[in-house]
């Protein structure tokens, strides 16, 4: 049986006990899938998991709290499920987790870069997977691209490709791409220097339209309707279009996620203007990992909700 079929059987098996299973189905264009809510076997028809399964279905779990639901997850999605459960934002026993080995997902922006000059991604009429490659039907003819060249950055540093906490796991577990996330990207980014980074964020954030897709795509942003980004009480942000306020929202998001972010990258993927907002969160994750050895998603208490009387890793300045 193919993984797809095995997953379908696993979903079918789960359906009687759950109100729905969240997975992926056909999207509005060939390069994009859409989250799929499977409520009955009829919905299974469009189901597919694989290279296009970019959305993190854990996003929907807190809003489905209160009834048992199923969810098909990639390794990174499973980390989100783990973190939500660790924070009691979902009840783990209310979620039936179906895992499968994930070998990476597409980054449409990378496809766009590959196709630049030839056509836009929106002109791709069909996508077909062929082993390690994909074949794209474009107005300029068929284009073959290696998957590794168009796979999301997060997949290149994936240490958890197999949902570790799955109730049902389908297929052969695959080897992690790396064993440790070295945060080399953040080190390189920081190496650009303070002046350049400040200018970088001014430039990037000036594109922000304050749509909050970053926030709403984040599975761990559970304040949602009550987010301080729009509230007046407390009044952290003006509603203006200035770079400072827009950047400050990203700071809020990053600080609220410090010690919680699993690095699923949905914030950055969701941004319609392509602002690399994950960088801020990764900078904090790197620090949290260094200080507390904590990788979000493993199920332990988030490090900022607890403490040690003696912090062996915190070297305080002695002001001598």
């Amino acid at each position, binding site marked *: 049986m193919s993984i797809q079929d095995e997953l379908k059987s696993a979903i079918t098996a789960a359906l009687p006990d759950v109100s729905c299973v969240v997975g992926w189905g056909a999207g509005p264009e060939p390069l994009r899938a859409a989250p799929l809510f499977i409520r009955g076997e009829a919905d299974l028809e469009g189901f597919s998991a694989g290279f296009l399964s970019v959305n993190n279905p854990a996003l929907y779990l807190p809003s489905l709290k209160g009834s048992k639901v199923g969810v098909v997850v990639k390794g990174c999605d499973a980390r989100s499920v783990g973190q939500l459960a660790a924070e009691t934002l979902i009840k783990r026993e209310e979620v039936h987790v179906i895992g499968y080995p994930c070998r990476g997902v597409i980054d449409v922006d990378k496809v766009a870069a590959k196709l630049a000059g030839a056509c836009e991604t929106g002109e791709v009429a069909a996508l077909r997977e062929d082993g390690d490659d994909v074949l794209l039907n474009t107005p300029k003819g068929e284009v073959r691209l290696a998957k590794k060249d168009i796979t999301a950055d997060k997949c290149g540093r994936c240490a958890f490709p197999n949902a570790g906490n799955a109730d049902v796991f389908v297929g052969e577990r695959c080897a992690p791409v790396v064993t440790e996330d070295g945060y080399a990207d*953040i080190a390189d980014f*920081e190496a650009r220097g*303070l002046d350049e980074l400040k200018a970088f964020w001014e430039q990037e954030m000036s594109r922000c339209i304050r749509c909050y897709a970053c926030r709403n795509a984040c599975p761990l942003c559970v304040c949602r309707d009550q987010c301080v980004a729009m509230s007046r009480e407390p009044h*952290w942000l003006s509603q203006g279009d200035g770079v*400072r306020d827009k950047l*400050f929202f990203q700071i809020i998001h990053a600080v609220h996620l410090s010690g919680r972010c699993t690095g699923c990258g949905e914030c950055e993927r969701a941004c319609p203007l392509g602002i690399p907002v994950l960088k*801020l969160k990764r*900078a904090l994750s790197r620090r*949290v990992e260094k200080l507390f050895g904590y990788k979000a998603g493993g199920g332990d208490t988030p490090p900022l909700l607890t403490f040690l009387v003696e912090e062996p890793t915190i070297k305080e300045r002695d002001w001598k």
Partner: protein
Amino acid sequence: MSVLEGKELRIVGFLCNWCSYGGADTAGVGRFTQPTDLRIVRVPCSGRINPLFVMKALIGGADGVLVSGCHPRDCHYAEGNYYARRRLEVLKGLLPVLGIDPRRFEYTWVSASEGQRWQHVVSSFTAQIHALGPAARFTEAPEPARLGA
């Protein structure tokens, strides 16, 4: 409000009421001379300090931010400073990636009896900020100057 041109830089302090604010009082009672730049926001406990207050000050134009609370084990509220320590220590990781010099933010512990320590902390932090000079302000222009232009 603008700083005293040429003399001062904008330095914001967040101090817990019980220890560090008291320590600053003790320093005052002892007439321990200090630089004039620092403006103190009094909060009940260092645990009250949302790291975002620090960021708000830095993004809003502060040249330096200093947080001070009770020494670990001596929090008036038993545990507030333990949480503060973790949160503020983590926050330091965010500054460089934003293009803010991490030396513009420090946190420390000063007890109500440590007037002299407070004088020392304020003097050295202020000197540190003056050595860094005024912080570059984040623009409010809708279209910032382009990179590489």
